[in-house]
């Protein structure tokens, strides 16, 4: 078997193991919270008998390990349980939210990733000169301002003053694709500003690092132009670190957008999680935790696999 396939298989197995471990952590975390689900449902004034009945009905008297495995096997089969607050199936209501979050993340990624890499290349091309400094300055400034503040600034200037786009990013299934894009334009702008700097600076650093190599001098002495040297000779050798930071930011776009969703009242996972945390809806919190963990681990796994595939020594052994 090709050694690369073995390496990738190992990496995937490790990812699954990590996911299993994080599911145990999530479950354990919700168990050590004071009070229990029955208490949360019935409130402070519930009688001990009522509590006991409900606990029995919900299976809360089983040992923790049994409940963990029941939850885990359910989750594997796509059954994340029912929400305590409204009795709805979690998988169903979360599916809609997850789709919205992924839509927002995908839009932000499509704008920010190519832009970040392009700006990174541009910064390397003009290393130490004004375009480099300007790009670094602007992106650093945008990452330094808290994202909710950027959100409100964008709403104020673009939506209120200029009257472009809606300040509320409400989407629903009846909207056309174009309308949806229009609705998420402002959150996408804010998210792009937030993740751009990190990706751009890592791209710049990774390529600058490679630019010190002797083979870059060889390329210069072949009479190639600066841009050809950067994209033909430097970029292919900088892919691994760039993919790593891109994946980290994509994971952030899915799991870290809570604040932005709240600012723009966007019906995504973040809003959903915040709502149910405040209502102490433990099964929903667990389910959200599991999905977020899966996204994070999955993205990092993809980054590792791309790094393995980008290494010619592993791809073409002696």
């Amino acid at each position: 078997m090709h050694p690369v396939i073995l390496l990738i298989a190992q990496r995937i197995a490790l990812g699954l193991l990590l996911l299993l471990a994080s599911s145990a952590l999530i479950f354990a975390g919700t168990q050590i919270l004071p009070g229990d689900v029955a208490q949360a449902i019935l409130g402070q004034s519930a009688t001990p008998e009522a509590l006991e009945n409900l606990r029995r009905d919900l299976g809360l008297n089983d040992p923790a390990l049994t409940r963990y495995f029941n939850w885990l096997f359910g989750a594997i089969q796509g059954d994340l349980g029912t929400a305590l607050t409204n009795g709805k199936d979690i998988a169903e209501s979360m599916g809609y939210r997850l789709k919205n979050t992924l839509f927002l993340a995908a839009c932000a990624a499509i704008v920010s990733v190519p832009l970040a890499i392009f700006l990174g290349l541009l910064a390397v091309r003009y290393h130490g000169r004004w375009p480099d400094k300007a790009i670094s300055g602007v992106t650093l400034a945008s990452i330094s301002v808290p994202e909710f503040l950027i959100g409100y600034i964008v709403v104020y200037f673009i939506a209120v003053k200029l009257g472009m786009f809606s300040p509320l990013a409400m989407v629903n299934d009846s909207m056309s694709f174009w309308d949806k894009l229009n609705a998420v334009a402002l959150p996408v702008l804010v998210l792009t500003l937030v993740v751009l700097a990190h990706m751009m600076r890592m791209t710049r650093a990774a390529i600058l690092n490679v630019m010190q190599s002797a083979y870059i001098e060889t390329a210069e002495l072949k009479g190639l132009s600066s841009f050809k040297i950067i994209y033909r000779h430097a970029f292919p050798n900088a892919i691994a670190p760039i993919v790593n930071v891109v994946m980290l930011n994509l994971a952030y776009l899915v799991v870290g957008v809570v604040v932005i969703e709240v600012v723009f009242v966007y019906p995504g996972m973040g809003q959903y999680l915040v709502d149910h945390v405040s209502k102490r809806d433990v099964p929903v919190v667990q389910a959200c935790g599991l999905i977020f963990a899966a996204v994070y681990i999955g993205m990092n796994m993809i980054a590792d696999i791309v790094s393995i595939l980008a290494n010619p020594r592993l791809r073409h052994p002696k």
Partner: protein
Amino acid sequence: MVNLLSVKDLKIGATVYPPGEKPHDIEIVKGVSFDLEPGMVLGLIGESGAGKSTIGLSAMAYGRGGVKITGGEVWLNDRDILKGGVRGLRALRGAEVTYVAQSAAAAFNPAKKLMEQIVEATLEHGRASRSEAEARAVELFRKLGLPNPETFGERYPHQVSGGQLQRAMTALALCPQPDLVIFDEPTTALDVTTQIDVLSAIKEAIRDTGVAALYITHDLAVVAQVSDHIMVLRHGEMVEYGTTDHIINTPQEEYTQALVSVRSIEHEEKAPAGDPLLKVDGVTARYRGTNFDVLKNINVELYQGQTLALVGESGSGKSTMARAITGLLEPTQGSIHFAGRTLSHYLANRSKEDLRELQMIYQMADVAMNPRQTVGTIIGRPLEFYFGLTGAEKRKRIIELLDEIELGEGFMDRYPAELSGGQKQRVCIARALAAKPKLIICDEVTSALDPLVADGILKLLLNLQKIENVAYLFITHDIATVRAIADSIAVMYQGNVVRYGQKSQVLSPPFDDYTDLLLSSVPEMELGWLERVVSSRKMVSAGN
């Protein structure tokens, strides 16, 4: 005849940032002039810092790092390339002039196939169509003696050996059919047995294509084999210029004479006396996680106050032997006896006395010292650690050691960055001596140094051996160094000791095949040496 390249009063400068001082400009090349006719080869020779690479690259108007051409003219094909601007230079680089770097392993892009890199410049400058360029490359692979020339270009750089890569780099330089190729120490990083093949391949390629070349090296014996003229450089100035015959056989300047007669240290071998200080007894070793023995049943002995040289090419296991003796790699079989006791295989189980009596000096003196410590601190550390010396006593001993290595008290407060390569190696020697060892393992300690500086280090080591009665295990790939310093020699090849004994015995015939190959591959300062060796080898292989 009209000149291809004409360099007139070339001046090259750089800005330096010495620690603790203001940045200032220095002049690296101070007004050098020379001409090169089409199809001729000019050798540029000098020690590091002589400006030879810098002058070579100026033929492409290229300055490494912060190096800038500050004055003079560089005429190539009847135009001053310094006035051509960026576009003019780009059109010239990789087309009219090409470059062969010292380390082909680093100069090839690891992410791209060889063929793509070799034809890139030819295509970029529109000097041939892709199919034409690839056909040319295959033809060059054949000429340069590369294996499977038809498919060689399909490989990635890491899939071929160092010697093959260096030849591929030559193919890269010749593919655009340039007028001038700059060879920058193209064989320096290779083993001596590989060097001879690459050298004759390069020489044949130059002759067949009729290209002109600047051949840069610090090894006069090498440059004598390939060039028509030689220019000797020192401190950015020309010392002497003449035909190869003139420079080798009748050098006029004192410095050139020193270069020609380098490596003339006479060392009488000492006969074994008493019990051996170090006895390596049937040692076999392999690296963790591998199932391949890098050392196979090694038996050698070394006596007090003597030098055993381990000779062999890279990968022969000589540095692994040092690792086994110092305890960094546990042997799987055999034992190591030192000063009458058996050393533990494990470093952690060795006594402080074991550690003290066995010291090491490395090839790369710069990375073997902490750049943020002064010379005094570096030498003082073993004094403190092994003997508990402090204060005035320690200072006195440091000064003694600095005198022994011929540097003196003034160097005590200097940092490694303020020392030359030879001075750094001297400080490393003093650090090893500070422990008052019985044995010092010297791992290629002169390989990174210029010949004259290396000579100085060898003389110092021999002198110290007389005074301190210390033994050296001297690891090297350089036969000349072995001749200068060894009492006994072990020739290593693929993890085996193929020949072992007193120096006089090992270096006199009859030879085994490998030792013969090794000895006959060492370049000699003599015109026509390369042809003589290559043709005698062809005759031997034809006879077989």
